């Protein structure tokens, strides 16, 4: 109980998510800091559901209840966006796979409980892109592009159409054709992602369980600078706990990771989630602890009780790394040069 004085911010948040039973013992003065860190990490809705029903100070309960209501609203808005996208694309009869938060709530997965959801992310086959683009534009979405260079950047070098936003609803949709930039080093098997996808009742699809975990790991480690990493890692924890009950899950996970060339990011994700959230993971697949794991943990927990990002050098190192992962060095240099010139 006295430990909450030493542990604070993101570290305390991670501990409470993993072990909610500790919450009633938390010193009253620590709550403002926990809530600030949770908001900054986009985890307040998740935390609110983990702590639901526990005896906590009245104010904390009220704030967490508001967070649950907010998450319910976000869920409704996300499902509606998915439905409007479905209506716009229904006539094409092509597979449309929901990704990330929207997929979790559409499929009723525990990873969706209390989750903050931003844009709608969908995955389609590369050769369906032109038809999908046309259908969305015809149904009220429009480009959010700044200029032709960014447009080119997105189409050729990233793994998605340039961002689209709906004219009246003001919500964004990101249309992907693979889960990592084609210019990045691991090259996932995009066709296999769609082929193995599972249909929902309304005709939209979600990735198969193993691919969902692998996508989350790729998103966490191979595509980003770990901003929002605690939340992405929590997704992985929840997905694993839900799916590992199925016999043969770990073997399938290994096979799919190999096919998508994402064994190393998956392994690291497993080690990190075990460390932070005590997720029971397959020891062989996770592999032995590596020295860099500590650095990742340090980055993931770089948030204080005021909601500020801390550990600046570590964060900067990861930011630079994330761009390096997305683009080979020559391309990166050119991209940064043009960005600088435009000012």
């Amino acid at each position, binding site marked *: 109980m006295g430990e909450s004085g030493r542990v604070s911010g993101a570290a305390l948040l991670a501990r409470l998510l993993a072990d909610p039973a500790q919450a009633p013992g938390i010193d009253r003065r620590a709550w403002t800091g926990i809530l600030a860190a949770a908001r900054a990490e986009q985890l307040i809705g998740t935390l609110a559901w983990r702590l639901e029903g526990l005896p906590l100070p009245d104010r904390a309960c009220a704030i967490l209840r508001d967070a649950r209501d907010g998450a319910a*609203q976000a869920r409704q808005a996300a499902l*509606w966006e998915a439905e409007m996208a479905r209506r716009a694309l229904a006539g094409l009869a092509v597979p449309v796979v929901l990704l990330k938060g929207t997929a979790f709530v559409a499929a009723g997965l525990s990873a969706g409980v209390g989750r903050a959801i931003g844009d709608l992310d969908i995955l389609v086959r590369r050769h369906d892109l032109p038809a999908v683009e046309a259908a969305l534009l015809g*149904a009220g979405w429009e480009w959010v592009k700044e200029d032709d260079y960014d447009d080119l950047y997105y189409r050729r070098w990233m793994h998605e159409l340039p961002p689209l936003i709906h004219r*009246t609803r003001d919500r964004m949709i990101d249309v992907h054709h693979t889960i990592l930039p084609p210019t990045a080093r691991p090259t996932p098997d995009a066709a296999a992602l769609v082929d193995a996808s599972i249909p929902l009742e309304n005709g939209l699809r979600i990735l198969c369980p193993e691919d969902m975990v692998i996508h989350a790991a790729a998103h966490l480690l191979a595509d980003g600078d770990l901003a929002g990493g605690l939340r992405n890692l929590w997704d992985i924890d929840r997905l694993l706990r839900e799916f590992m009950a199925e016999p043969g899950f770990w073997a399938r996970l290994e096979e799919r990771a190999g096919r998508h060339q994402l064994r190393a990011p998956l392994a690291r994700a497993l080690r990190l989630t075990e460390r932070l959230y005590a997720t029971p993971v397959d020891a062989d697949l996770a592999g032995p602890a590596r020295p860099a794991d500590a650095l990742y943990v340090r980055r993931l927990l770089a948030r204080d009780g005021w909601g500020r990002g801390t550990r600046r050098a570590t964060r900067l190192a990861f930011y630079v790394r994330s761009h390096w992962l997305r683009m080979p060095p020559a391309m990166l240099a050119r991209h940064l040069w043009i960005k600088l010139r435009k000012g």
Partner: protein
Amino acid sequence: MTGPLYRADPPTMRLAVEAEGLTLLYHRPSGMTHVLGPPAPELLTALAEGPADAAEIVRRLRQHHDLQDDAGIEAVVAARLDELEAAGLVSRA
């Protein structure tokens, strides 16, 4: 020659408040609020009986409202249905 078939959510999916001849409408599935003027609310009510195309909707409307004997009415209804579709209040059946 039948036009496209439309459907609407059941009336329980909407909350309506009348104010000076306009309808303030809350659509539960989308969480969106709309301000509708006639004949939009009447079209939604007409679809409560089941999916229909513009011509069928005109027939349903005639049963409850005094409509002019006007060939152009179907086109007006079709145009309103288009708008309601964009707003998410009706969809293709």
